[in-house]
């Protein structure tokens, strides 16, 4: 069933009446949200308010019970599994609180992986990885594996990985949650810088008010509703 | 596969007033013992395979030389021929197929109240041999042969656990040929005759090897050798038989044939053998065989009337009473087939007043019911 929706080219993400519950527990209760190109939004809320669930629904890892999510004006609900997988591969970058780098790959390889997944030509890919490594200041550590990097470095690799394939939207789940304040600051600055440079929209879940400094807009979620 | 030829064990001899001429051959085709035959010894101590049935039988009472221990013994070898038309497929001497042999061996240790016995059946061959020319038997655990001296016989009987009885018998009386014209009659049927030769009093000396020890023994024994080719008559349930060796130097042989209705067959008889070996006999109407007591076997459950009172009228001396008492109750011979069990054992003989007058061997057969069926 095609959703009747007006096409707004400037909208990267559009969430309308998103509901999601786990059993009896309603986690998202009619969330509506629009993120435009280049917009950086901080999503705040207490534990269990539905922040992470919302991110998971946006990335298609979890399905909505009702409502819809449009990424670049196409509905996630209408996509089959491989469509969702392709959407994630091509349009979304993800940054986790605990980095989630693949332990067996080097920093370079970790960053290169999403580009490989979208079949970016090898030369372009390598060039791009090098460039972004330089941008995140880790050119010298490209051959190191995650367990040889510090927390801040790991998160910088994660940011590079999230941006390498030119996504439209970066979802960041507490990107500074595992970092000390200095490294956290560095990572936030990097995130801001890169998202501006690449014109990518950012939806960042955070607890920390100071983190919101890099965002255009701060929204709060409480009991499954945006306030 | 069990063979019971036990039914041949006792062949009845009946003296009939009228002479019945036996045929040359039995219905099965075996030679029938001929009348007026003068046994030719030692040849006739040997085997007679052209005749259907034959046995050698020794019983007796023994004492250890120090007189402290008393024994009774029975050693019997039977020979049974197959069909005379039977084909001899194998001439291999180890496994013949024309004759079967059985051994019955029993020893009664009267002081210790122990009775040991066993039965074996063999085909003629490596385990069973009988000479045609002489007394020379080797059948399972029994070996018997004639010694060169004075008609002496040597009999070796083996028992369980390596025990062994080695006896030498010396005849104290000449051999007795029972029956009219040398034929002992077993019934009205013309071929029902046998040659029946006995040593009624043999001096026995020898050794008993028991539990690895050697005991010298001596005593008095009885020996039968009978040859015939005929089957038994109908209507018999069993028989009681005894041989008595009395202190006065005479012997008495008595038997009754029990009919199914509980009576005695008319050919039942009593023989007296005097000190010179002369015999007189009376028949069923001249004697009574009564049971005075009985014994129930704990092993087979059979009841044997093993205390017997025989009242007979001697043609010369008139009424005689012989009371036979077992010296040991448990002298029951159970063969390979329990319904063929019989009682045969050492007894003493008392006169009417209860005074011991001699020793006897008593045989009570056909109390298991199996025999009657097999006789027919």
């Amino acid at each position, binding site marked *: 069933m095609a959703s009747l929706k007006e096409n707004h080219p400037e909208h990267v993400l559009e969430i309308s009446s998103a509901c999601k519950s786990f059993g009896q527990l309603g986690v998202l209760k009619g969330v509506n949200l629009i993120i435009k190109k280049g917009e950086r939004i901080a999503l705040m809320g207490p534990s269990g308010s539905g922040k992470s669930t919302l991110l998971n629904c946006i*990335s298609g*890892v979890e399905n909505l019970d009702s409502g819809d999510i449009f990424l670049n004006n196409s509905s996630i609900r209408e996509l089959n*599994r*491989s469509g969702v*997988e*392709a*959407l*994630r*591969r*091509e349009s979304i970058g*993800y940054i*986790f609180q605990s980095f*989630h780098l*693949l*332990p*067996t*790959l080097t920093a370079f*390889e970790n960053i290169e*992986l*999403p580009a*490989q*997944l979208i079949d970016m030509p*090898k030369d372009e890919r390598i060039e791009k990885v090098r460039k972004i490594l330089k941008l995140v200041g880790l050119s010298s550590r490209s051959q190191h594996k995650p367990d040889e990097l510090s927390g801040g470095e790991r998160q910088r690799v994660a940011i590079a*990985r999230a941006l390498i394939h030119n996504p439209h939207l970066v979802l960041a789940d507490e990107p500074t949650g595992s970092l000390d304040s200095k490294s956290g600051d560095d990572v936030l600055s990097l995130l801001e810088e890169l998202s501006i440079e690449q014109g990518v929209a950012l939806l960042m879940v955070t607890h920390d008010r100071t983190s919101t400094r890099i965002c255009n807009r701060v929204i709060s979620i409480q009991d499954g509703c945006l306030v | *596969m*069990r*063979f019971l030829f036990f039914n041949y064990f006792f062949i009845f001899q009946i003296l009939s007033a009228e002479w019945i001429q036996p045929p040359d051959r039995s219905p099965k085709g075996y030679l029938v013992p001929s009348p007026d035959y003068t046994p030719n010894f030692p040849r006739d101590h040997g085997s007679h395979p052209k005749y259907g049935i034959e046995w050698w039988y020794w019983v007796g009472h023994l004492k250890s030389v120090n007189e402290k221990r008393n024994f009774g013994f029975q050693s019997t070898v039977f020979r049974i*021929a*197959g*069909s005379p038309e*039977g*084909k*001899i*497929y*194998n001439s*291999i001497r*180890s*496994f*013949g*197929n024309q004759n*079967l042999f059985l051994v019955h*061996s029993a020893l009664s240790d009267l002081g210790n109240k122990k009775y040991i016995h*066993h039965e*074996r*059946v*063999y*085909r003629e*061959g*490596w*385990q069973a041999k009988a000479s045609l020319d002489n007394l020379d038997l*080797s059948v*399972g*655990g029994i*070996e018997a042969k004639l010694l060169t001296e004075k008609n002496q016989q040597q009999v070796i009987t*083996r*028992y*369980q*656990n*390596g025990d062994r009885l080695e006896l030498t018998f010396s005849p104290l009386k000449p051999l007795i040929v029972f029956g009219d014209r040398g034929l002992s009659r077993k019934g009205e049927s013309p071929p029902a005759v046998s040659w029946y030769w006995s040593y009624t009093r043999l001096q026995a000396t020898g050794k008993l090897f028991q539990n690895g020890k050697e005991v010298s023994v001596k005593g008095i024994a009885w020996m039968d050798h009978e040859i015939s080719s005929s089957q038994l008559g109908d209507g018999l349930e069993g028989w009681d038989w005894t041989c008595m060796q009395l202190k006065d130097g005479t012997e008495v042989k008595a038997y009754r044939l029990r009919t199914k209705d509980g009576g005695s067959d008319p050919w039942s008889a009593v023989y007296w053998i005097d000190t010179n070996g002369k015999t007189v006999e009376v028949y069923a109407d001249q004697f009574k065989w009564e049971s005075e007591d009985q014994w129930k076997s704990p092993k087979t459950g059979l009841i044997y009337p093993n205390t017997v009172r025989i009242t007979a009228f001697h043609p010369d001396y008139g009424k005689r009473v012989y009371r036979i008492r077992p010296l040991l109750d448990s002298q029951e011979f159970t063969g*390979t087939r329990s319904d063929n069990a019989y009682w045969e054992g050492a007894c003493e003989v008392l006169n009417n007043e209860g005074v011991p007058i001699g020793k006897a061997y008593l045989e009570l057969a056909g109390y298991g019911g199996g025999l009657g069926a097999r006789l027919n």
Partner: protein
Amino acid sequence: MLSFRLAILLLFRTTFRHWRKNLGSYFLLVGIVAVGVGAFNGIRQASRSASANFGLFNQAVSGQSDFLIESSTQRLNSNILQDLAQISKEPDWHLLPVIEGSVTSLDSNGSPDQQLRLVGLDLLSLANLPSLMESKFDFGKEEPNWYEWLGSENFVWIGSEAGRKLGIEEGDEISFFASGRVREMVVRKFIDASSVSFPDDLVIGDLPTVQNLLSRKGELNRIEVIVDQIEMRENLNFLQGIKDRISKNLPKNLTLKATQNRAADRASMTAAFRLNLTILSLIAILVGAYLILQALDAAVVRRRAEVATLISLGVNRGVLFITFLFESAVIGVLGSILGIGVGWFFAFLSAQMLADTVNALYFATTIEAISLTLQDCLFGLCLGFLFTLLAGWLPARDAMQTPPAQILSRGDWSPGFSWLRKSRVGIVLILSGLIFLVFPPFPLAGGGKMAIGGFLASGCWILGAALLSGHVLVRLAGLIKPYCAGPITRLVFSRLQDGSSRHRLSVAGLVVAVGMVTGMFQMVDSFRITIEEWFDVRFQADLYVSERGVTGAGTINGIDPLVMDKLVHENMVSYADIVYISYAKPPEGITILSGVDMKAWSTQIRQLWLKKPGSLKPVEGCEPALISETFARRFDLIDGGFIELDTMTGKKKISPIGIFSDYGNEFGTAAVDIPIWKEWTQSERPINVSLYLGKGSNVNEIRDQLRLSYPGLDVRNASELRDVALGIFEQTFKATSALNGIGLMVAFAGLLLGLFAIFDESSRTWFTLDYLGFSRKQFLLTAGLEGAAIGMGAWISGSLVGVALGWLLINVINVQSFGWTLQWHLPWTDFVIFGLLLFAIGFLSGVLSAALWIRKQK
């Protein structure tokens, strides 16, 4: 006590709850233990059942015997009975002469139908046997007519079931082959065997009748002794007394031994064969134990945080140790109980196979009903329990050593087994294997030898290779990874290069199985090729003639000398190489004495000579002999010397003048000149003959002609003989291949389990990849490739150790145990096919375990 209770509490509160989450894995684990214990127990039971009887077929009728009177040649002449007559007089025992032979019945078209055991007993004296009275065994209402069938020409008795199988009625005739003739026997009656177990292939006849039917007049195989007082059998003093009394009068050339010793003797002669099977069956248990180690280690890793928390809460480390040991004990007990059932099933499946092998190679035997004794149950339980406990030991210790602080701070990072990462242990094991190689073989009771050093070396090498295989995997992955551009291959090889304990354990478990299987490949292949080459050299005659209808080394009647005489004087025969064999008794065990045309064998008949005739000098006063390599090695005669053999006519000394290769048996053969053989064995009966035809003869035409004239003989040309022999050869390796199969199955199950654990532990990676847009297909492909790569890693390491094992089996174990020199041959194609198979199975296992993982995540 408190710690014990706490351990039980933890077992129920934590362990079993974890089990519930991974029920499938634990089922598989219990199943693996069950298969391991089952394979071991099954072989035990099957070989017991297959060797319980060792040829005393008459006992179905005559009951258990206590002693056997035998000659060194396993044959007797009936005349010997006259010498035993004195012994037979004693009523304390029964002597039961026995003749037996294998014959083949013919169907209505005259073609071979069924193999039957024709056993001759003195049917009349059976009546004396105590057991017969007990069993109520009955020949029917035959007794009064004994003279009609006693010692008859051809009357026999069979069980009614056998009658049904042969499709005959009482009174019918059965045609059969025996001793090179076609004969007929008449079924007099069916035996009502309702109360006794009467084998279907047993035919009973009177002793002289059977001698006649087998054309073996005057021959016996043995004389059994049965005590009369069977209730005294348990009394050893009583039996010893009986034995002493019989021995006292026993003729010199005869031996008396307890019947159970015969089974033991024969069993000891097949000891090497059974030992091989037992060792093979142990592999399944070893691999199983290895898998348990792997699975429990995975459990420890998965629960590391939980363990760390428990330690932080003050739970004693000993309690944790006990809890994990308990866990393995529960798996062990459950698996072993199941394994007893599985063992029975295996035994049921394999008993006939083993019996066929034993029949083909060693002695005539039949299978008895598979019995499951309490001992089997206990043995199985103990074995499974012990192995799983041993396997649980290391993970339990690992759990115990969990440091709380470190774990809590570093998340789920697991050191795994540090010793797996050290190559030193593996290298030490491989070096010690080399040292074991110089160990001399260990002599066994029956005269065989056990290659103890060889077995120890193979154990060390397998273990060493298993330990080192992880390093090989890591190195190989490191070599390949730079060439991987794609995300999937890069991921796979980076993971393999990283070499987690789990990967190392998985590959090691598989290496054990691969090593064994490829080792066996080589042995079987080398064997086949050697035998084929031996055939080509050895069998140069035109036609080969043997008794028809008898296969294997079981009960051979041989050929009637009259038939042989007629055959060799046929005018197309230019030379006949007649061979005679009989058993002979060396100081230890049993061996084969053969009679051959020494002159022809030394000059014309081609052989694979290890030492050419004349190259060894015979010892003076000894009969010169040509001996087989097996014989030479068994009795240490490789460089000449002499040995004394007990024959029918007493002890004889033989001394080798040449040594030939022979793969026919493992008892060894010594060949002397025919007249000497006849004199020593008192027999005239040849076993086979090779015919050399006149020049220009049409071999197959003459073969067909001879087949028509001698229907009781098998007449084959060289290629037909070769087919038959190779058929027997295949038969002998059947049980071995079955066990190999079981070992492989267990290894594959383990691979599946290992891969599942690997994926389970990499959950985080997969989640991340999922967020990165890694498709399910890509995930399954990654998993499949990882599995396949592990399979290939195991193939490479396993094949390396397999080649070493093959060398060991062929050049050490075979030579020491059987005295056979084989030409080592590497079956390349088998190796490659096996590699492909491993790749495919690894791939499938990977995909399957990934699919399972996905299902579990849902």
